[in-house]
């Protein structure tokens, strides 16, 4: 097995140098998710600026994949509209469920495209998705999204 296809340099870089880690002061929405099989934890929070741009905060502990994924999430979603955020989130989910097949859109996914290799490791897909699931819940809690939308 090719460890490098899983642990792309971008992932290791985000893992070692997480972007935008930290919680918000008074979040509109906040969601805490755990991976019940390994105990990894993540809290994702959202606010919205007056122009409709999302403000994302997060904190957590876990493996390289889950932490790097959260860092990439902030980089991609921070400042975007809720519509754009949904577009990115759905593209990420689709990529992670494609088991390594599919044709992820680099324009939308940016650095997140590095996670395409993770999709080949079913046990790690959950790690990569942890923060994205929490994001959705935080957005629902903030009233920016209605339940069940997309998923």
């Amino acid at each position: 097995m090719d460890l490098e296809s899983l642990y792309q340099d971008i992932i290791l870089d985000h893992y070692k140098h997480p972007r935008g880690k930290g919680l918000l002061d008074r979040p509109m929405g906040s969601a805490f998710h755990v991976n019940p099989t390994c105990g990894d934890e993540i809290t994702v929070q959202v606010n919205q600026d007056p122009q409709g741009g999302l403000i994302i905060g997060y904190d957590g502990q876990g493996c390289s994949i889950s932490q790097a994924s959260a860092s990439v999430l902030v980089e991609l979603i921070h400042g975007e509209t809720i519509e754009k955020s949904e577009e990115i989130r759905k593209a990420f989910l689709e990529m992670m469920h494609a088991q390594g097949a599919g044709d992820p859109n680099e324009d939308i996914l940016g650095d997140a495209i590095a996670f395409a290799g993770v999709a080949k490791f079913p046990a790690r897909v959950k790690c990569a998705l942890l923060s994205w699931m929490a994001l959705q819940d935080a957005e629902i809690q903030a009233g920016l999204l209605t339940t069940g939308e997309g998923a």
Partner: protein
Amino acid sequence: MSTLDVTAIKADFPILSTTVRGGHRLVYLDSGATSQKPTVVLDAERNYYEQHNAAVHRGAHALAELATEDFEAARVTIAGFVGARAKDLVFTKNATESLNLVSYAFSNATALNNRGAGLIDPRFVLNPGDSIVITEMEHHANLIPWQEVCRKTGATLRWIPLTDEGRLDLTHLEDLIDHTTKVVSVVHQSNILGTINPVKMLMDRAHAVGAIGIIDGCQSVPHMPVDVHHLGADLVAWSGHKMLGPTGIGCLWGTEEILEAMPPFITGGSMIQMVEMEKSTFAPPPQKFEAGTPVVAQAVALAAGARYLEKIGMSAVADHEFELAEYTVDALNALVGVRIIGPANAHERGSAVSFVVDGLHPHDVGQVLDSRGVAVRVGHHCAWPTCRRFAVPSTTRISPYIYNDTSDIDEAIDGIVAAQEFFGVK
């Protein structure tokens, strides 16, 4: 004429070419108790152990991934077999556990509610004055759990009585299933009488009074096309070992909404979300109901059994069984001194046919058949109250399956006549 190539099917079941009792060809007519297993099922189980065996849902290594994939793919196949989604299918060890899982949802919810322990769905809380409705033809697995729930909660058990020909007597249905009713749990096809019940109507009646509707599909899922969505039930239970699968696996299908609402039954590892010494939260269904190391190899093997049945086609299976039912009923009707317990015609009945022989005890009938290589079941078939209803201590039951043809029924009929002669009651 049956569309099934029974000779070819028989060849797929190694045990059916064995002999018993000193050289007699095995004529296996006890599939209502448990079915035999085709080679593809045995191979699937063995291959799993020899190639992929590992703990599922837990490991991050290669084998654990393969084992998890096998297990969840099996869930998709078996759910698909009854027209369901994988996430609505819970694996248990047998249908009895499936039915207990449901009955315990009521006793657990009631106990938790009585102690004010959290938010409990009131549909599962039972109080004295509430009623649970079953029928007089239930297998013990769909009777005793409800007796126990009643003992623990003070609810009352009611049952739909039977007509003399072995069908539900629906005369007083509106009084039996009324506003006090919180559970209606009925067998789809009786394992002792063979009767096929109008379950959709009963489930609709259950829902009309706000009760939860449950079907025991042990004898229907293996024998006819079943789409859980057409039954109108909230929950359907059945066993793997009666549909070509191994022992040690049962199924429970439920609507997403009901499975979400039900409290867990067996608790422990793999069914949790978060655990502290003081308290825990639970995973969503089906995991919530699958504590501990699940029945992985059994699920993989049962999926192979379901695929085998699908290849034959469940409509073809049902047609075949209808023919065998008709043939058996006619042959028994033609015998002097033999009385069918249950519908004496093939209308709305399965191929399991119970009967008694005047002057002969079922054990003795079964013994004579056995001495000729014919395996039938004698006893109360775990439906003792049904025997009481028909004033017999027990019956002899012929229950064929896809690997039986009319020549097997003939062997049984010949054996009955031989028994009458041996004991001099003819």
